[in-house]
């Protein structure tokens, strides 16, 4: 992977190293920007700005093995400063509440049929579910959860890398995964219910 490649090329000159790192992460940068900005044109602008800012700040990269989280942090900062400044801050404040209580409350809010469905998962459901439905559910998540889930579950960053990329402690990534994924499940459940998938499952079970 990239980290291993960087170890082998520690003596590469900064420009060559940077260009190669950008090229190798181009799809991941664009994919993340697309989920953050939710628009192709905005995502392209975001990536271009992040690349410019990253090169300007290349001297702040102290460990080349941390290039990826460093790069994603710059991308995320561009997103916050350009697109979502007014929304991200209140979300961060809300994260200060007692998260376990909130999570338990969230689970208790789920209707009985949802719990029954969890206990008897219709495995074909996710296989049948269109990719666009999953990305739509991700896009509906609040910024902080969306960014975390995209970096970890879509782009494959570790919790430590995601924490570095988002400028938060690792514990916050854990909390966001719990709440974000629970919100995602609820959104997917609603889609399944609205599409009649779970109703069909109930009928088959009788």
């Amino acid at each position, binding site marked *: 992977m990239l980290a291993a490649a960087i170890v082998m090329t520690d003596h590469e000159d900064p*420009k060559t190293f*940077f*260009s190669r790192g*950008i090229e190798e992460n*181009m*799809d*991941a*940068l*664009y*994919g993340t920007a*697309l*989920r953050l900005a939710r628009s*192709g044109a905005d995502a*392209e602008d975001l*990536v*271009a700005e992040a*690349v*410019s800012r990253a*090169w300007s700040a290349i001297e702040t990269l102290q460990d080349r093995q941390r290039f990826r989280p460093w790069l994603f942090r710059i991308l995320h900062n561009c997103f916050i400063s350009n697109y979502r400044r007014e929304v991200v801050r209140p979300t961060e404040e809300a994260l200060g509440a007692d998260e*376990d209580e909130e*999570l*338990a409350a969230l*689970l*208790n809010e*789920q209707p009985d049929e949802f*719990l029954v469905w*969890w*206990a*008897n*998962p219709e*495995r074909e459901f*996710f*296989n049948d*579910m269109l*990719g*666009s439905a*999953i*990305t739509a559910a*991700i896009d509906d998540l609040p910024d902080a959860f969306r960014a975390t*889930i*995209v970096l*970890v*579950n*879509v*782009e*494959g960053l*570790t*919790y430590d890398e995601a924490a570095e990329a988002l400028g938060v402690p690792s514990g916050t990534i*854990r909390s966001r*995964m*719990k709440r974000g*994924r629970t919100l*995602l*499940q609820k959104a*997917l459940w609603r889609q399944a219910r609205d599409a009649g998938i779970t109703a069909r499952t109930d009928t088959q079970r009788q």
Partner: protein
Amino acid sequence: MNSDKKSHGKDDIGCLGAIEAFYAYLDGELSEPQAIEDFEHHMSHCRSCFSRAEVERLLNRRMRETGTAKAPDELKDRVRRLLDEF
């Protein structure tokens, strides 16, 4: 996973305890051996949490498959021009 905080034996962490470790375990981020053991013990006894884990694994796979995107050629050209200017 259930809202009645099911527990399976006095040493079982219960469903809420399992929630605590759920995603860290599935994402390979749970490192403490005791925490892993406790979680797996609960999974081996709780059908609803086990089922939920299966669903989550499927969802993880689908997110990875559908969430990734290819950078458009126009963007690649734009970034290449930027890099040339640096």
